[in-house]
């Protein structure tokens, strides 16, 4: 089953802040296999979107180092013209906000048709129109001929996201990147869109990278999960292992802080402190260390690396061995204003 579509090796994406470069994605290595859905999960500011944008090379002013191997080429070294041959054809992207991802002045049919035209100049007009209608049908849009002539503002959020998905899959890409595809949508629409992405994956056997902050979505969708914190992957495992035997303190803290509908929790776990800003990231030692101060210094590695604890299950730093949640009684009692 494991035929890699995408291989990322020691990827480092840095942004310039006042003449200094800071790595938002720091030494990330991963592979995405054919017919596999890899979820990348983390809080805002952990670098998950920066990673997705690096793969597509959509950053305008970032310094990207490392290797992104896709179809035998290193994407990092390609020129824009060479990249444009791949983007939209071999790799498609679904963006977070479907309204800003669409051109408000173009009818839906022309927007999807444009992608077909760019990558296949010889396609006849009729054939193109037929293919667009076919795509709209595939993503579950009712009355596709009518929607073909509509503008984005005439569609609801869920329908717009379906159009964005139709654009992403127009040329049957081998790799699909979905960056928070359902964050802007209602729950019932969210489940429809996620089921659609899953069906499309099953059908095309494409590799999919799903970026999300919602652990429920991860549990429903993913084959494998990478948890990111402060620009690094802190844990990566198949979805069952990750939810049943999470090891890294960050993964465990995240899982404990979500209110779920199927179990009773009296109190949610709170991760102390905040995700540090890019300029203030600790560049040495365990990056999650400052947020679990009750774990002694010696539990952390000096330069934390990923350890393979079981086949395919990697955890960064050794602090997971000594990690425990703080006891309730340790928490400070806050007094009430009289």
């Amino acid at each position, binding site marked *: 089953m494991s035929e890699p579509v995408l291989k990322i090796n020691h990827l480092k994406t840095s942004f310039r802040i006042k003449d200094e470069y800071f790595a938002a994605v720091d030494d990330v290595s991963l592979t995405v296999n054919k017919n596999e859905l890899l979820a990348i999960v983390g*809080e*805002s500011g952990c670098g998950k979107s920066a990673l997705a944008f690096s793969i597509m090379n959509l950053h305008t002013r970032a310094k990207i180092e490392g290797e992104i191997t896709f179809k035998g080429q290193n994407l990092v070294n390609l020129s824009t013209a060479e990249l444009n041959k791949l983007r939209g054809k071999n790799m498609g992207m679904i963006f977070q906000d479907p309204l800003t991802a669409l051109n408000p002045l173009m009818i839906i049919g022309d927007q999807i048709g444009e992608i077909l035209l760019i990558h296949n100049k010889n396609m006849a007009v009729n054939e193109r129109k037929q293919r667009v209608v076919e795509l709209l049908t595939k993503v579950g849009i009712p009355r596709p001929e009518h929607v073909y002539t509509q503008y984005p503002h005439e569609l609801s959020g869920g329908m717009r996201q379906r159009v964005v998905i139709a654009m992403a899959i127009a040329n049957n890409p081998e790799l699909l990147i979905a960056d928070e595809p359902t964050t802007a949508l*209602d*729950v*019932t*629409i*969210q*489940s429809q869109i*996620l*089921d659609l992405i899953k069906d499309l994956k099953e059908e095309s056997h494409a590799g999919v990278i799903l970026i999300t*902050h*919602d*652990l*429920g*979505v991860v*549990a*429903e969708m*993913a084959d494998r999960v990478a948890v990111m914190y402060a620009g690094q992957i802190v844990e990566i495992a198949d*979805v*069952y292992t990750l*939810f049943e035997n999470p090891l890294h303190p960050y993964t465990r*803290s*995240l*899982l404990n*802080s*979500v*209110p*779920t*509908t*199927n179990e009773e*929790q009296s*109190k*949610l*776990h*709170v*991760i102390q402190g*905040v*995700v540090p800003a890019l300029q203030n990231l600790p560049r040495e030692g365990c990056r999650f260390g400052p947020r679990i101060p009750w774990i002694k210094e010696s539990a952390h590695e000096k330069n934390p690396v990923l350890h393979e604890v079981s086949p395919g299950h990697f955890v960064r730093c050794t602090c997971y061995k000594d990690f425990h949640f703080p006891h309730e009684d340790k928490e400070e009692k*806050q*007094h*009430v*204003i009289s």
Partner: protein
Amino acid sequence: MSFLEIDDLKVHFPIRGGFFGRTLAHVKAVDGVSFSIEKGKTYGLVGESGSGKTTTGRAIIGLNKITSGRVTFEGKEITDLRRASKDLRRDIQMIFQDPYSSLNPKKRVIDIIAEPLRNYEKLSKAEETKRVQELLELVGLSPESILKYPHEFSGGQRQRIGIARAIALKPKLIIADEPVSALDVSVQAQVLNFMQEIQKELGLTYLFISHDLGVIKHMCDHIGIMYKGRHVESGTTKDIFENPQHIYTKRLVAAIPDINPRNRNEQLKFRQDVKQEYEQAFDQYFDDEGLAYPLQPVSDTHLVALPERG
């Protein structure tokens, strides 16, 4: 007599157009909603965008004009809160959804939190500073930050400033409109825990508006599900999650992703079954205009919008 009673609340917005901006029609944002909240409890209002849940909350606190219906708070009618006595208004406060736009960026933290105090209590400068510092400490922010501006805080910290402002006058009822939707999960946990703590300590009653059923289940004692401006179901948290009766409620419950990946296939099947049922049985659950029927009791606590039988 309940603590807060909403009786047949309607909020209609006019659609203006034509030559003289005449009223052409109305958007019935809230169309006959009734519920009550007991003191010290949390009532959750759930629905998708456009269901009228926020409008309901805003109407209670007087930010939207009520078209008809009655709102009674501690036995006193407050339907027109703008004309209600000043004391009543201080008892109801609101926490807003977006911690970025609900704090004035030009004001310092002390001025933001002290504004309600200045409206209602005559305090000296020193007393006021002390109160604001106490409030900041209560919400877990350092008292030294009174001179900072909102942009110097993170999203979770800002939301806590919003909460400090809401509890400054020790209100009895807080309307929380999607207080955690804009926040990351770990910060969300912090704000939710905190809201529960101050509820116990100050004896607060919450009207909690959210689209996230996980959060709602965690926080609420009673839940009302809204669809197109009407309630489709209301009951205790147990009623709604363990015994949903209305097809729309079932659909919402089915749409929540399950945190256990082993249940994923069952969940998918469940979702598809409910979807099929929803499509087939839509007409049985909604009237000719696609709106919900009036609520009928199915048990002491559980009300469902079903057509009258017989």
